[in-house]
């Protein structure tokens, strides 16, 4: 008996020791006070922001590279790497001077030749960069700190183009920037506030950045993407956790500090947790879009695309996708987002009131005779899937014969880029989203681009609309721009490059000991403090 009791007490002692060890193991990560642990929305796979339009690659670039200009909270470009610039009286010559103290992560100073090389690579791929290039006569380094842009004719969006954060002009060393734009870069050296720790990168798991000790921030106050970029944590660790429930549990347990894209149905629960803050960092938010394929009947006919406007009721979509009315606008008919400088309601009347009879009449005028309408349904993307479900119901209510093709997002991306017959390899309709400052501008809003074969999948085609966008981009007078913008929107509601199905925000969630999160439309990690 004595023996069995001593065995039992020994077992209890072992169990207590084991529990202690495990609890100590739990406590260990908390000791790293200055590491900001972030669950990002996607796994970082491509480190070249020029090579891909993937958001995650862009966010990586915002951390390690610096930019010539940054957009402030009013979306006005402010100098970032540039100390000053001068414009000639005729508006054709821009002379820029870099600010002192700029250094790459390898210690080399940032010079004008680095800027010119980075600019020349970027403008081969980015649509807004390409448009600026089409106005450019020359771009040259004058000396180490000065470079000059000479235009063929006046262009109103020079600084906006240089300051945009999505698909932005990230400055790389000349040797890196000389890489063919069709090839990925092999070296990841920037001059931004954080340094990429390549040796700690574990694709599919973790990306690590450390504070750049040599970064000299601007002295101006931080204002969105403009002003001082001060890294206030020593390390930023991006964790890729594909399961949202696991991310939620990790945030609740304090294993992570920052949940970049919590599912929208988690938001009410997160808001109730006193140890968690929900922050809307996107004043502009996201726009859901329904994209028709311009290449095939019935949506090659403008009447059929206009019919979609009469079928859509934005609130139905927003209820299905977002749910929480605090996170969406009841109605927004602006192609360039409500709340932006380019907001306009011109032409949006057909979208305001659902009218299936009118939609049926327009479909008939477009020659629709009950053929199948192929809709791509990405079942693994909750938001896109919800949008598609609403669309299916809406099309059926309008008397259309719907052929829903369910697939994963990767297949949708492949399929929607295929110009083939909708009944074989193509499609008629699909959903996507876009948002932020790039959507708020007719030039950088890539889904609005109506350059036919050169447009995004769906191949919106209306050269008159494109001409209006070009006129808008030449104009630097704000009042005149507004007039052109209204004409752009009126025309867009006739040709319908896409149907805006609603505007909503995707908040982030952080632990309550995190402060200094910037309202920037895209997540950035400077200015953030962890107490």
């Amino acid at each position, binding site marked *: 008996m004595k023996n069995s009791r001593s065995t039992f007490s020994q077992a209890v002692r072992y169990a207590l020791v084991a529990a202690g060890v495990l609890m100590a193991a739990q406590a260990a990560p908390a000791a790293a006070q200055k590491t900001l642990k972030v669950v990002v929305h996607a796994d970082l796979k*491509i480190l070249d922001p020029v090579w891909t339009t993937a958001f995650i690659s862009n966010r990586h670039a915002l951390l390690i590279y610096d930019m010539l200009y940054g957009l402030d909270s009013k979306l006005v470009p402010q100098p970032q790497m540039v100390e000053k610039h001068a414009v000639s009286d005729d508006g054709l010559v821009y002379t820029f001077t870099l600010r002192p103290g700029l250094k790459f992560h390898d210690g080399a100073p940032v010079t004008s030749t680095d800027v010119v090389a980075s600019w020349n690579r970027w403008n081969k791929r980015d649509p807004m960069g390409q448009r600026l290039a089409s106005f450019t006569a020359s771009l040259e380094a004058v000396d180490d700190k000065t470079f000059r842009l000479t235009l063929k004719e006046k262009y109103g969006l020079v600084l906006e183009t240089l300051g945009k954060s999505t698909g932005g002009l990230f400055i790389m060393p000349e040797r890196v920037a000389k890489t063919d734009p069709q090839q990925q870069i092999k070296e990841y050296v920037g001059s931004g506030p954080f340094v990429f720790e390549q040796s700690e990168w574990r694709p599919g798991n973790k990306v690590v950045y450390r504070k750049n000790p040599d970064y000299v921030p601007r002295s101006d106050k931080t204002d969105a993407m403009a002003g001082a970029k001060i890294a206030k944590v020593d390390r930023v660790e991006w964790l890729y956790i594909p399961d949202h429930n696991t991310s939620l549990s990790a945030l609740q*347990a304090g294993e992570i500090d920052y949940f970049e894209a919590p599912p929208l149905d988690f938001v009410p629960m997160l808001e109730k947790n006193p140890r968690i803050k929900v922050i809307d960092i996107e004043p502009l938010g996201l726009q859901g879009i329904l994209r028709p394929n311009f290449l095939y009947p019935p949506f090659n006919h403008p009447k059929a695309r206009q019919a979609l406007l009469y079928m859509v009721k934005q609130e139905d979509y927003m209820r299905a996708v977002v749910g929480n009315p605090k996170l969406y606008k009841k109605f927004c008919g602006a192609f360039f987002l409500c709340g932006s400088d380019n907001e306009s309601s011109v032409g949006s009347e057909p979208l305001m009131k659902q009218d299936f009879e009118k939609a049926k009449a327009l479909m008939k005028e477009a020659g629709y005779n009950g053929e199948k309408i192929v809709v791509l349904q990405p079942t693994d993307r909750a938001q896109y899937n919800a949008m598609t479900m609403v669309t299916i119901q809406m099309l059926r209510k309008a008397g259309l014969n719907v052929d829903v093709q369910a697939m994963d997002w990767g297949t949708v991306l492949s399929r929607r880029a295929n110009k083939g017959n909708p009944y074989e390899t193509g499609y008629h309709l699909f959903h996507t989203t*876009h948002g932020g400052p790039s959507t708020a501008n007719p030039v950088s809003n890539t889904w609005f681009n109506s350059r036919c074969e050169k447009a995004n999948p769906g191949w919106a085609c209306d050269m008159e609309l494109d001409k209006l966008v070009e006129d808008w981009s030449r104009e630097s007078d704000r009042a005149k721009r507004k007039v052109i913008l209204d004409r752009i929107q009126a025309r867009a509601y006739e040709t319908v490059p896409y149907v805006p199905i609603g505007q909503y925000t995707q908040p982030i969630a952080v632990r309550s000991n995190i402060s200094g999160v910037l309202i920037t439309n895209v997540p950035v990690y400077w200015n953030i403090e962890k107490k």
Partner: protein
Amino acid sequence: MWSYLIRRILAVIPVMTVVGIVVFLILHLNPNDPAAIIAGDHATAQDIEDIRRRLGLDRPIYIQFVDWVGRLIRGDLGSSIFLERPVLHLILERVEPTLALAISTTIFSVVLAIPLGVLAAWKAGTWIDQVIMAVAVLAFSFPVFLIGYGLVQGLALELDLLPVQGFVSISEDPVRFLAHLVLPTIALGLVYTALLARMTRSTVLEILNEDYIRTARAKGLANGRVLIIHALKNAAVPIVTTIGVGIALLIGGVVVTESVFAIPGVGRLTIDAVLHRDYPVIQGVILVVSGFYVMINLAIDLTYTVLDPRIRY
């Protein structure tokens, strides 16, 4: 024996060849396009076309196949289309978490399941047997993700005893390595424990009805000796087979468990590669894993000779 071993190892070649051809054809005849995924959500058709050309995906399939086989013969599994890193490196990076989870799950299951299975067989028809088998059925019926979320809620969030997610290498911190393995091991191990316990019970039960067991009991041997030396040893062959198959499945990657606990193992590498259409990675992982399956089967077959002297190759 040696000639058997050599024959079995050589048999890997045709198996891998068939696996390679089938996997290549399934992937490449599918109308999917990694270039569209690489280019991102806002790319134009021209961007996608440029990337496709750059990656050589616009070449005829037979040329791509010959190119792939040529590199394979030189021992090169190729590079990830997205990461531009050798596939072998990517697999090796993921081996430690998967291997650790496979070993811990196997140990957990064997230590728990075999005594329970033997006990159930020994007490067949009694309430002990019924309880053990009921628990086994329950464990087997619950989806792993449900068990996983339950464990996270109870042991990680409520009691704050264990970490919710992630993996720490044993070389970095052995204690945290173990702490991170506990929950996934239990979540995954319960299913294997149930399977193994049922298999052990039925095998041992069958053997307990054999004449030689009756003889052993008639000779007056102690129950424990009859059970361990006479029954369990003879039941070992099917049990070892089940354990072996379990290990092979675990090494192949346990996608749900790795996803629920954010473990960067082979399973997640595979599913990620499939979702991104990263052909070289999918092909590489399947080849390596199928090679491993063949080797595990060989190891199981060789174990039979140790467990049952009647088996000779």
